[in-house]
């Protein structure tokens, strides 16, 4: 079982303050912590578990700068066998189509049975790369995957739907699966573990190596062009309750009682 996992390095913006640069085309990165996209981490863990159960090899790939190598090494330390870095420069500003084209080139260089990626990236949240990649490859795909079970030349998956409902599908391999969070519990990777793999070579592929020509990807080639970023309008804001915790608690209870809450 040859598995490719596509990962992305993203900033963690959950609790951080996100500040726009003056040109409103990008955000300030200095105070942000970067790391592997949360969905992709689940995908890597899942791939490694499949390998541990069924045998095979796991390769992780990302389109990124040299600073993305740490993400790849972490995946190697988790148990991936190989890592591939695709030079980011030509892909600067690429939309999901551009990214998927690059990854298609990576897939073409190997003979993979399964390609995994996270459902979406924590920064832009398009959720497009996996199904678009599948389309370019002509492979079957499934998104929002919450469980995988190999069945010879096929794979059975469950997909997460709304309202606590799931559906099960069977796909013919090779296939692209977009992995949902919560599918497993990713293992911890120690620094010593990362050190152990520090001498592993990570080849860097340039544009030609992934079968693309200049101008096929990058901002100019985008189908989705970003015009600008803005802070969401204030709109309807909550009425803020101020005071000591005791005062706040009292107000909350009053509101609740007004609405027929507490006995």
């Amino acid at each position, binding site marked *: 079982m040859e598995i490719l996992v596509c990962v992305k390095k993203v900033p963690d913006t959950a609790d951080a303050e996100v500040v726009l640069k003056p040109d409103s085309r990008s955000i300030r990165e200095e105070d942000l912590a970067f790391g592997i996209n949360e969905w992709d981490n689940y995908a890597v863990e899942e791939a490694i578990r499949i390998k541990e159960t069924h045998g095979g090899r796991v390769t992780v790939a990302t389109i990124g700068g040299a600073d993305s190598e740490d993400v790849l090494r972490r995946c190697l330390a988790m148990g991936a066998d190989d890592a591939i870095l695709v030079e980011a420069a030509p892909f600067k500003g690429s939309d999901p189509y551009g990214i998927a084209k690059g990854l298609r080139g990576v897939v073409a260089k190997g003979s993979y049975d399964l390609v995994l990626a996270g459902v979406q990236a924590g920064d832009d949240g398009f*959720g497009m790369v996996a199904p678009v990649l599948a389309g370019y490859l002509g492979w079957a795909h*499934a998104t929002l995957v919450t469980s995988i079970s190999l069945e010879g030349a096929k794979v059975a998956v469950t997909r997460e739907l709304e309202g606590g409902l799931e559906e099960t599908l069977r*796909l013919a391999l090779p296939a692209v699966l977009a992995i949902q*969070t919560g599918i497993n519990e990713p293992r911890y990777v120690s620094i010593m573990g990362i050190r152990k793999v520090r001498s592993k070579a990570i080849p860097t592929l340039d544009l030609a190596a992934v079968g693309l020509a200049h101008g096929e990807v990058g901002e100019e080639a985008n189908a989705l062009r970003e015009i600008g970023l803005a802070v969401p309008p204030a709109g309807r804001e909550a009425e*803020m309750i101020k005071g000591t*915790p005791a005062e706040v*608690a009292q107000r909350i209870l009053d509101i*609740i009682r007004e609405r027929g809450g507490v006995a």
Partner: protein
Amino acid sequence: MARVFVVVEHRQGAIRDATFELVTLARELECRFGLEPAAVVIGHNVRPFALTLSKYLPETIVVDSEALENFRYETYATVLKDLIEKETPLVTLCPHSAFGMELFPRLSVETGRPCATDCIKVEMDNLNFVVVRSVYNGKINSRLALGSSGGYLITVRGGSYAPAAEGAHEGTIRDYPPPAFGPTFRTEFLGYREAAAGAIDISQAPFLLSIGRGIKDPENIPKAEELAAKLGAVLSCSRPVVDKKWLGKERQVGTSGRTVKPKVYLAMGISGAFQHLAGIKGSGVFIAVNRDPKAPIFRAADYGVVEDMFKIIDALKEKLGR
């Protein structure tokens, strides 16, 4: 005449609510930019759905075939590709749901038409589309222009538009013959199942105390449970708490969890990710407690408190008596 198609999403015998939000968007595009709206219903024995939609939009196109009984991107994409290439709508809309996420990006490649996903606002600039999307954990909005094309695919975030009301006149219904499907399929639908069966049904609870990542430690959950008991509330949560397996999936409020319509929703330590908020409906009062003054939840709540949630938990317990 440029047209806008609304793909009707349905499952297990019911049309999903998001469809009617798309109707609102379609009508808006009609109003502002002159696009003629039509609904597209794909499935098997879906005539009743077409009848419903005909009360909302002037035209409904039905593609009915046994092969389309259960949704698979493979069959639905084949149908839509055929339909879009023959009917050439300028834009086709779909909810950004499990259905839309599975179908539209793939369809985009099959049809060669650009797709923008999870849009919260859709507008036009001449014949080009401009959409707004929410990025960076809901803290920033991004405006995208879709490259010029003969047709566009757009998935829309639930709750971005209000659900439409029925129209004054009944529209027409047209049957569209499904295309021939290839001899072999790569996908097979096996069935549905409920993710978690628990004793608790939060969707019926009138008062919910909901906790999120801010609870930090499963050790703290008993504190929340105690408070819920004192308040007479049912304990619910957001996705991260379930991902960590601190509470069961049956307590998750959100698109992939349960939809709730409580009279009171008290959210603590929840940042307000869209998928969570989408699970809260109805006209109850929404109170949010979060340490981060910039948490998106304060844009959705009626009342907000910027404070350490544990202090508020303790203060509430104090007031309610030990």
